[in-house]
Each structure stands twice: as C-alpha cells, then as structure tokens.
C-alpha cells in the first residue's frame, strides 16, 4: 500500500502490490497505468532483488525521490517567488540567467543554479565570539527537522514514504523542532539582532503552535484517525455526485483551514509573520551572522517548512491527492497533489507580496486572543457537525445555518474586539 513500508514490512514480491489493490479504500479509477507509474517504475528497478535488499533499496529510492523532488521544488520555488513578486511589483523578475555559456535565457530558469553556485562559493564567516558548534549545528538541525516532516505526507495514491498510525502527531512534533533550531542560530551568533530574533522566534513558536494544533483537531475527530492516509480516505466520495467531501467545504473545515494557514504562515516565518528575520528592524534576524552555504540551508529549510505545512494543509483540508471532480480522476493523484500544493504555495507568495509585518505583541495577541479561541470554538462547531450528520432534508439547511453562525459569529465578535482600537479615520481641513 505504500511506497516504503517501514512500519509493516511485507515480504514477498507479488502480494505487496496486490495488497494495495485489495485495500478497501482504493477507488476504481486508481489502477490506471499512469496512476501506478511511480510504483511501476520502482518495481522495474527493484523487483528482481531478493527481499531484504529490495526493501532497503525501495526505502532508499523513496527517500531519494522525496529529497530530490523537494530540492527541485525549492529551487523552482525561489525562482517562482521572485518572479511572482516581481510581476506583482510591475517588474519582470529575474529573467537573465539562462543556460551557462549560451545566450539562452529561458526566462531566468538558470537563476536557482546560479544562486546555488554563488552560495557555495561564498566565504563562510563565523563570528569570533560565536558558539561555533551551535552556530554550525543550527542550519543542519533546521534542515533535518524540516526534511523529517516529509516522511508522512501522502503525495499520491499509495505514495506515502512512511505509513505511521500517528503520522499527523509525528509531523507536528518534528515540525516544532525547527523553532528550536532558529533559537539555536539566534543564540549562537552572539549578535544582538540575532538574539532579539531568537526571542521573537520562541514567542512566536509558543503562540502559534497552539492554534496550529487546535485547528486540525476537528479533522482528526471527524476522520477518527491520526494517520495521514486515513485523513485523506475520510475525504473520499462525492456529495450529489460532484461536490467532494473535502473538509474545507464544511463550515468548521473552512474555519479550521484558515486558522491552519494563518498559523502555518507564522510557523514558517513567512510574511506578515516574518518577525524573526524582519529585515527592516533586525537586519536579517537570526540569519544576520550567517553567510555562504549555511545561509542557503536556512533558506532551504524555510521553503521546505513552507512546502511541508502546505502539503499537510492539502492532506487535512483539501482532500489530499483526490481530484476535485469525479471525471477528473483520470489525472493521476500525484498531479492533483502537486497542483494543490502549488496553489497553496502561491497563496503564501501572494500574501508576502501584499502585507506589511505585524509587531511582536500584536502577533502574540492575535494568536492568543483570536486564533486560539476561534480554534476552540471550532472544536464545538465540529462536534455539532458530527452529532448532526444524520440530519436530512430541511434539517440539513438548519445544520448548515447553525454551523455557519457558529463560525461567523465568533469571527465577527472577536474580530471587532481585536480591531476595536483601529479604524480608518476621516480628516478635517483647516
């Protein structure tokens, strides 16, 4: 059932695949050749090997595919982000770097490569009074934690590196480690700006971990499982034959999705929550004393974290790798997953292009006074939704109305309270 089953090793060459087919939640469309392409390719490579070796090679292949896939995604994402930011700002973005030694520019596709070479060849400066070990470990740890989170993401039908029963729990446990690494970086640099950034990062972690975790509890309540594949499975099927059963299409699911994405912005230190590296205030925050490839590692980790959180949002709320309409199921599942992932990543970039930054006290206030209560109330909404799942006919409408009110009411009330002191003003003239 999985690309690599670390948890349950299934010996034997044939039953691996047949088991996945007989698995209860494989839809009929799921066995097209295109859909099985990754597995077919994998089997071409490894099916002739004896068992323990085959398992090892399969695992290695999965790791390599995921790592390379995301490394390429990272490279592309840096370019896409700069392009989109540029376009938003009425300029073309990087468009000069093409193939080396040729005149081909290819819309700047060579830019990530050039950036990488530049980063690799830059001098790696460590401040004299820095804690050298921690200074070195911080980017490594950050990247390691971010990569760990990829292990449980279901990238497509039958494509999940590790099938963990508590996959979601594992994901967030590993993801929380990144803030520790940011603190390490800030502390070890022995720079006042870095230290301030480290403190900000910790405050942000403590504030936003809570709404992040609370926001997907309703999903787990509904799905009844902590396994990522289980959550995707819970979103299978169609209402009226064409509306997917995605969590985001329910009132509580939508609210939870928004809370999750806002917290994810904060977790991945993205604008408007990029306080730890606020360049107009703290120069580069915890990155101030980093240069060369360590700096690149930080960036890599930031983008990996962004990708991982987006992928998790796709899994939890947007139906994972499932197609949005029944007839679109011909398109392979991993393509759908990638499309949804790109959509969310584009959202990240779009938000970055638009918003100014919050202040640290506003950031924590927003988390504690708005997101956490909203997430808690959302738990109740989800409970209501789950209790009334057998309402039908006109009661169905009432169910929707009540659930919507439970979401919108607190949003309006608390939103008004939060922005009580702020309002557009009118001005008088002399």
């Amino acid at each position, binding site marked *: 059932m999985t690309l690599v089953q670390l948890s349950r090793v299934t010996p034997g060459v044939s039953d691996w695949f047949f088991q996945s087919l007989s698995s209860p939640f494989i839809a009929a469309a799921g066995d097209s050749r295109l859909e099985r392409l990754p597995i077919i390719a994998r089997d071409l490579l490894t099916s002739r090997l004896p068992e323990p070796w085959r398992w090892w090679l399969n695992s290695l292949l999965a790791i390599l595919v995921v790592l390379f896939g995301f490394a390429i995604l990272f490279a592309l994402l840096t370019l896409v982000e700069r392009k989109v930011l540029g376009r938003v700002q009425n*300029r073309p973005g990087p468009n000069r770097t093409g193939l080396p030694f040729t005149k081909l520019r290819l819309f700047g596709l060579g830019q990530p490569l050039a950036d990488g070479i530049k980063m690799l060849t830059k001098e790696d400066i460590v401040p004299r009074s820095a804690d050298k070990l921690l200074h070195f470990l911080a980017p490594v740890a950050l990247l390691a934690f971010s990569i760990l989170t990829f292990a449980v993401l279901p990238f497509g039908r039958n494509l999940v590196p590790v099938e963990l029963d508590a996959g979601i729990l594992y994901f967030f446990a590993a993801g929380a480690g990144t803030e520790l690494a940011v603190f390490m970086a800030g502390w070890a640099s022995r720079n006042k700006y870095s230290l*301030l950034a480290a403190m900000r990062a910790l405050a942000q972690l403590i504030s936003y971990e809570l709404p992040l975790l609370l926001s997907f509890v309703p999903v787990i309540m509904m799905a009844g499982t902590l396994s990522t594949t289980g959550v995707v499975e819970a979103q299978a099927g169609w209402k009226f034959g064409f509306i997917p059963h995605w969590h985001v299409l329910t009132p509580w699911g939508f609210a939870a999705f928004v809370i999750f994405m806002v917290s994810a912005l904060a977790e991945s230190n993205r*604008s408007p929550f990029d306080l730890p590296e606020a360049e107009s*205030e703290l120069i580069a925050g915890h990155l101030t004393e980093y240069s060369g490839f360590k700096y690149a590692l930080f960036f890599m980790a930031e983008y990996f974290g962004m990708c991982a959180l987006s992928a998790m949002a796709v899994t939890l709320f947007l139906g994972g790798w499932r197609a949005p309409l029944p007839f679109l199921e011909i398109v392979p599942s991993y393509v759908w997953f990638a499309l949804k992932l790109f959509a969310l990543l584009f959202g990240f970039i779009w938000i970055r292009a*638009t918003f100014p930054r919050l*202040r640290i006290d506003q950031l924590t206030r927003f988390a504690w006074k708005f997101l956490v209560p909203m997430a808690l109330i959302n738990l109740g909404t989800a409970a209501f939704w789950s209790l009334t799942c057998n309402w039908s006919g006109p009661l169905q409408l009432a169910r929707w109305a009540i659930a919507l009110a439970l979401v919108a009411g607190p949003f309006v009330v608390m939103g008004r309270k939060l922005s009580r002191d702020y309002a557009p*003003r009118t001005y008088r*003239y002399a």
Partner: protein
Amino acid sequence: MTNSPIVALHGTPAVAGGNAPSEICHSPLAPGGAHVRSVRDEFHGDLLEVSMGPHHPSTHGVFRMIATLDGETIVKLKPVFGYLHRNHEKIGENTTYLGSMPYTDRLDYLCSMTNNWAYALAVEKLAGQPVPERTEYLRVILAELTRLLNHTCLAGFLLQDTGASGTPLMYAFREREKILDLFEALSGSRMMCNYQRFGGCRVDASPEWLEAAKRLADGYNEFLDEYEALITGNEILMARTQGVGVMPRQLAVSAGITGPMLRAAGVDYDIRKVDGYGVYPRFNFRVPLGDHGDTYDRYMIRVLEMRESIEILRQAFAQLPSGPIMDPKAKIRGFKPKPGEAYGRIEGPKGEIGFYLISDGGANPYRYRVRPPSFINLTVLEDMCLGHSIADAVIILGSIDIVLGEVDR
C-alpha cells in the same frame, strides 16, 4: 524610584544604567519586599543596547540610533548623525551665489526643485530681484510635483519599513519615475535639477512638457486610489501605525516641527497659506489636519496633501500665463547683492525649508545658513519612540521623513 526600566515604560526617560538596583516593589506593606524586588530584578534582567545603524536596512541612509532596550521596548534612544556631513554651509560661504544653487540640489535630494526655490527666494529677497509671472507659476508647478514625488516616496518607504516586501515601494517608485522623467525633460537631470535662477528659471517649459505634466496630474488620483486600496484600509497597517509615535501638539510647536508632521499633530500651519509666497494665494487648496499626531496621521496627511497638490497643479496649468521666464535685469555672472540679510523660506514637502543669507556686497554670501526641515523634525525622535518597541522606532523614523543629505548637510 527613578532608575527602573518600568518607570521608563511610563514615559520618564530612564538612565540606562545597566542593571541598576530597582526599588519598584519596595513597599512597607509588603513583608519581604526585598525578596520580591530581587525576583523582579531577575525577571527584568539587563538592558540591551542596540546600535541601529549607520549600516542598517531601515535607517534611510547613514543614520544611527543607539537604542537602549528593555526586552524590545525602547527606554532610551540616542540619535547619532553627521556621517554625511560635507560642509554645505561653509562651501556656500566660499562659492558664488550661483555656485551654491547646484549644491542645494544635494541637500534633500528628493526635493531639489523646492530647495532651489527656497534658495532663489532668499537671494531674490536679498537682491530685491523681481520674478516674472510665468516663472512663479512654473515654480509652483514644479514645487507641487516635487511634493507629489516626495510624499509618494515617503509612503513607499514607510510601508517598506513596516515590512511590506517592496510592493508599495515599487508602486510608489513607478509613479515617481514619471515625475522624474518630467524633471529630466525640463531641467536635464532627474534629481539634481539645478533649475531655478535668481529672477527666473533656466529653461522654459515647452507646450509638450506642460501637456505631459497635465496628463500626469490628471492620472495621479488614480494611482492614489489604488495605493490606498492596497494599504490604507489594511488592518495590519492600522495596527502598526495608529497610536504609535504620538507627538503632542505642544511638543510639536515647542520643538519647531514643521510640515506634514506638524499638521498631523493638529496645528494649522502651512507656509503656503501663512506667507503666501509666490502665487500661492491665487490657488484654492485645503490644508488637511490630523487629530492624533501618530504615525498613521502622518502618513494620511501626506496622502491627503498629495490630493490637494493635484488640485493646485490643475489650477496652475489652467492659469499659466505666457511671457518671459527670466527677469531682463537679472544677472547670471557678476552677481553681487547689496550688503544686507535675508531669510527666504517656503513650504517644502518635508516642512519649512529656509535659507538665511548675509551679504557683505561681495560675490559670495558672508553667511549662508540652511534651515533644514528634516533635521529639526528629527529632534523629537526620542520623545516619540520612548515606550515603543524597536519595530515601532523604525516606522516612526520612517514617518518623520528624513533625508540624511539634509540632516547632515
């Protein structure tokens, strides 16, 4: 009760004495007050002194703020400047009256046209030199274009300081480019215009130029609408700027603040109205006033001023007379005003920009002194920043609208 960071939070400037023993919780009613105090001390820890600048992304040049922080709250802030000092006033005394004109471009390099005008006004007062009417109108047009340019830049930079990833800045610069193109077409240079002369100006505006300028003025409201839709109603911006860096009226008046900053504090003082220099009395325009004196007001006042500037421009284009642009008696070379003194001031985009000149009858001024609005507006920086966080200090500085070329001179 004095040396404590807590006291400093409520407005009394604290002496940043590091870890001074605090008596804040000492009370005869509290048994074991000493114990409580020590816990408090540990909780507060040391003050952190951060030197922001001279190389810092948001100090608008080579400006330095030595900020003493309690956590992230500023308890003391010492501005340090002079890194860009280049003897402007002394050079002015050692060069001819005309020779100083290009140097005034370099004071506030965003507003060379208004600097030129203020200097020309001072010299014309000194020499009793009349100015043709067409030039007066051209001066108003160029000054209001400069105001648009400066305020647009400020809005962009301020938003950049709040961390908006460059988008508002790029929009602002997109429009600014258009104004700079106009300046280039007229004066030959984008920023260092060197355009005004004593008793006139250097080049006449062609009908095509006027047409282009008119088009720009007509289209500017559209840009402002878009810009305001992008940012003015933004909750994050409001949260960041409202109530931040409040400058009371009294402080503003006693510190000699001028320009949009003063009007944001609610003081109705606009030299265009007060002095009525040039042909400003012929135009209908309003002076927007703020009620809170905070950063948001300072930003909004500038946006509203831009809209008024567009009105002035429209009227000026409609009224522009034809005629000479240089007074026939004006001298370019061998200009030697009679002994005397004069102070010429105009309402620059940043505030009152004035030049004070004493002539001893020679070809050089005997005394040459600039009244730079940026510098004087900057003096209240600490008063506005105390008790706010370091993130606020950055945007308060941004809202003052300084150009270091003018501060340091």
